[in-house]
């Protein structure tokens, strides 16, 4: 091949493509995700950005379901209780699996699993419960297996769930984040975001005030009105940023929150179009 078709990749603009568009010859390049080979040509199968690593050509779709990778932090909802396992909806192409052997049971990390545990699995997680977990491995058919073998993971309470397109959540150093107004955020890489009441430092896992019995509790703590407002404000901000396709990072979220406080906008008024446009403009223009 005389001319490298990807010469212009170095420039600022992204190269976009659509399903059925020929990208390059399959003799010179390898096909990656989002492409297929037909008649010795590599052809795109999704609409999105063309990416190339050496000889590998892939197309990344913009709006798609979550593509899990081992080690990702995800938030999910229990859909089914099966023998020795839970099925978890994690915004992926198939429901994830949470094995009874990969959760921490109350009464110490080292506790052995008993037969009675299998019989009372609904005491730990029930259908509809939300949890935060890590992707542990994959099954042969591509379904993911989760684990909650850390005190940071487990059942979620005291908060609210927001769903955004997974591409907007990028891998960060930490996906647990506290805003100064008494709100904790968990940014799941699958696009599920948990906004909840702040857990005091003294009550954090491993500290003295940590209540191990409350790990599987279904009862919310008392949440005062100010915290409730703050939680709703953060959820509305996330919704706005998501509809405007602004990638969510801790910096952006903090800026948006400060803007909302500065402008003294009522929580429900945030969702109005002119206010949300102003917010997005302020966040993307700042710094």
């Amino acid at each position, binding site marked *: 091949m005389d001319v490298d078709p990807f010469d212009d990749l170095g420039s600022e603009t*992204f190269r*976009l493509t*659509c*399903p*059925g*568009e*020929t990208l390059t010859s399959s003799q010179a390049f390898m096909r990656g995700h*989002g492409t*297929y080979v*037909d008649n010795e040509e590599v*052809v795109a*199968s*999704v*609409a*999105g*950005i063309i990416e190339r690593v050496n000889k590998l050509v892939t197309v990344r*779709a*913009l*709006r*798609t*379901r979550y593509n899990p990778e081992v080690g990702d932090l995800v938030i999910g909802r229990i*859909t089914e209780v099966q023998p020795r396992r839970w*099925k978890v*909806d994690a915004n992926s*192409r*198939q*429901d994830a699996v949470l094995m009874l052997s990969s959760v921490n049971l109350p009464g110490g990390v080292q506790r052995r699993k008993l037969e009675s545990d299998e019989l009372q699995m609904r005491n730990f997680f029930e259908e509809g419960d939300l949890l935060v977990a890590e992707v542990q491995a994959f099954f042969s*058919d*591509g*379904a993911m297996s989760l684990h909650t073998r850390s005190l940071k993971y487990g059942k979620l309470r005291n908060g609210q769930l927001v769903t955004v397109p997974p*591409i*907007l959540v990028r891998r960060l150093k930490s996906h647990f984040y506290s805003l100064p107004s008494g709100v904790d955020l968990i940014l799941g890489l699958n696009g599920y975001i948990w906004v909840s009441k702040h857990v005091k430092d003294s009550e954090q896992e491993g500290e003295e005030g940590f209540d191990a019995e409350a790990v599987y509790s279904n009862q919310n703590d008392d949440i005062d009105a100010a915290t409730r407002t703050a939680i709703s404000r953060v959820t509305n901000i996330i919704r706005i*940023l998501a*509809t*405007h*396709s*602004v*990638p969510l*990072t801790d*910096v*952006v979220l903090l*800026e948006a929150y400060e803007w909302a406080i500065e402008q003294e906008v009522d929580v429900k008024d945030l969702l109005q179009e002119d206010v949300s446009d102003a917010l997005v403009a302020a*966040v*993307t*223009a*700042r*710094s």
Partner: protein
Amino acid sequence: MSSRIEILNDGGYRSDGRRQYELRDMTFDMSEQAGADGSAIIAHGLTQVLVSVFGPREAKMRSQTLHDRAIINVEVSIAPFSTGDRRKRARGDKRILEFASMIKATFEPVVQTSLHPRSQIDIFVHVLQQDGGVLQACINATTLALANAGVPLLDFVCAVTGGVHAAAPMLDLTTLEENDLPHVTVAVMPRTGRVTLVSMETRLHVDRFEEIFRLAGQAGSVLHKEMRAAVRERTKGVVDAMGSGLRTSDFAEDAMMDDT
């Protein structure tokens, strides 16, 4: 067959002022519908169709789950207010079921189902207004919705209806014309020129078929250009929005590093 209105007048114009091979005005709206993975509203003249795509997601019907590929589930609903004479069709209406299975059969060879074993792709089609060419609108809208949802497709599927008046072939028929003329809907994959659907519910003379079939195929590639432009514009819009956000945070991180 004599009709009260003139299908094609002596000047070569049709009842709505179009030429023989002229397509109606098309609009594509690919903005997000709440909750759906991908959606599209498409209008061919007065015919308007909304399609929402969910998935690939965990198959809810265990018995139908396939271990080597995804299943496609199409549900069609026709709004009672979509036609001139208002009437409600039951969900189990045979005609609607057949319509749904036609759409399903059109997309089964196009969607790369083998990439998503044990899952299910739900396609919900809502016909909002009908003025001829409902099937073509449904197929075109489904293509856009699937592309919007990031479902891997071999190619676009572009469908156009063709009919024949006396010996004059026509494209993109309205209800008025559909009632009077023999017509055929053809869905093509423009890259390879493969045909994934030919649907004919009226009797058409064998000698006329080839010409209409060829014409509808050509019109499909014209449609393809428009649809591709719509998808590109949508993709570009999202990329630009994301890009502006990305740059901000990168700058912010740099600034923070300078401070320390």
